[in-house]
């Protein structure tokens, strides 16, 4: 075959070889088809571990209960026992090192997430005790009268 055919052919072959070489070094060896087959399972296996390594921020009551046993026990005996400490106090992270103090959110906005009365039939929200935030002591913090750790009308401050 004549030269003018071979020369561009060599260029094309060179480019293909270059791409394959680059791919060999760039694509990790664990990249390929895994358990779910090519359609759903074509990926880099090490990424599963990458996700598992992410730091847990919300550590649940199990983390709080030893140091704050007084609050924990009071809360566990109340109607708020299912609510996590961190729902109101924010994620524990590395507390007490970092952050040394967690937030204490006394805002009305936090309480009325559940306790703004919505009369919704077929939802438990309709059964939950609630108030009209616009008429029930508007502007005041709920925790001025109610103890969030032990919310019962008998326990009003």
């Amino acid at each position, binding site marked *: 075959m004549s030269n003018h055919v071979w020369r561009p052919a060599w260029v094309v072959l060179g480019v293909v070889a270059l791409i394959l070489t680059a791919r060999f070094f760039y694509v990790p060896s664990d*990249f390929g088809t*895994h*358990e*779910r087959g090519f*359609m*759903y*399972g*074509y*990926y*880099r296996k090490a*990424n*599963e571990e*990458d*996700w*598992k*390594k*992410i*730091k*847990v*921020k*919300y550590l*649940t009551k199990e983390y709080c209960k030893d140091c704050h046993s007084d609050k924990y026990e009071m809360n566990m005996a109340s109607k*708020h026992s*299912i*609510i*996590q400490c*961190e*729902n109101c106090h*924010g*994620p524990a992270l590395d507390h007490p090192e970092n952050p040394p103090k967690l937030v204490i959110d006394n805002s009305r*906005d936090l309480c*009325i*997430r*559940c306790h*703004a009365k*919505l*009369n*919704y*039939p*077929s*939802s*438990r*929200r*309709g059964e*939950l005790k609630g108030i009209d*935030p616009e008429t029930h002591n508007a502007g005041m913090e709920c925790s001025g009268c109610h103890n969030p750790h032990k919310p019962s009308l008998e326990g009003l401050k």
Partner: protein
Amino acid sequence: MSDNCSRREFFANALKLAAVAAIPVGALKILEPGEAKAAIAKTGVRWGFVVDTYKCIGCGFCVKACKNENEVQYDAPVSRTWVERYVIKKDGEMLADTPNAARDGFTTSKIHGQAVPDSEISKAFFVPKLCNQCDNPPCAQVCPVGATYQAPDGVVLVDRTWCIGCGYCIMACPYGVRFFHPKYKVAEKCNFCYHRISKGMKTACVDACPTGARMIGNLKDPNDPVTKIVLNERVGVLKDEYGTKPQVFYLGLDKNVR
């Protein structure tokens, strides 16, 4: 006997041909020893989720916890999970909203600024939404680079180092659970808090829920509470007709929920 085949032979041969044609190509594939071993030794875990829409009170603590746990900017208009409110009026009109993905909960009866008197409501409820971790995930199917995939335990993950941000998966998801992460600039979605469930914890939303409306469990364990609900109670899935086989099951799903 003539050269032509008899009617009996013709039928017999036709049946043999049909039987051979019915063997799938996959059945003829010879597996490497490693592949065969992997195919037999399946993982004992398949993560599944149950949402009880009767119990959900629309407080939005799940959304708050999810955003913080998974570092999705708190003020960005995107979220891995969200809660929808459905109000169906007595005249048949349906109203639905999810202000800020219900990050701050539902604290007023106004929907899109419109007041709905209690006397007009025939039913009203909240529906939490999250990734369905489909058994046939269309998002993983369309990914052109192999950046999103289904892990052996059924959770669909996104490889942040591999994603090129083309957005095909965001378009492909029939449930709209995918979005661009504002910080990492790659596709983002709920992954059942993979870093928590792999450590034996529950997802951040399940822990934060004050009513137990959200549950996560192992569908391969017949004694798991989630598996028991899926097997023994009347559960529904979203958009069943798409054939995606969602693994998030809803108790009390209404026909108005999409």
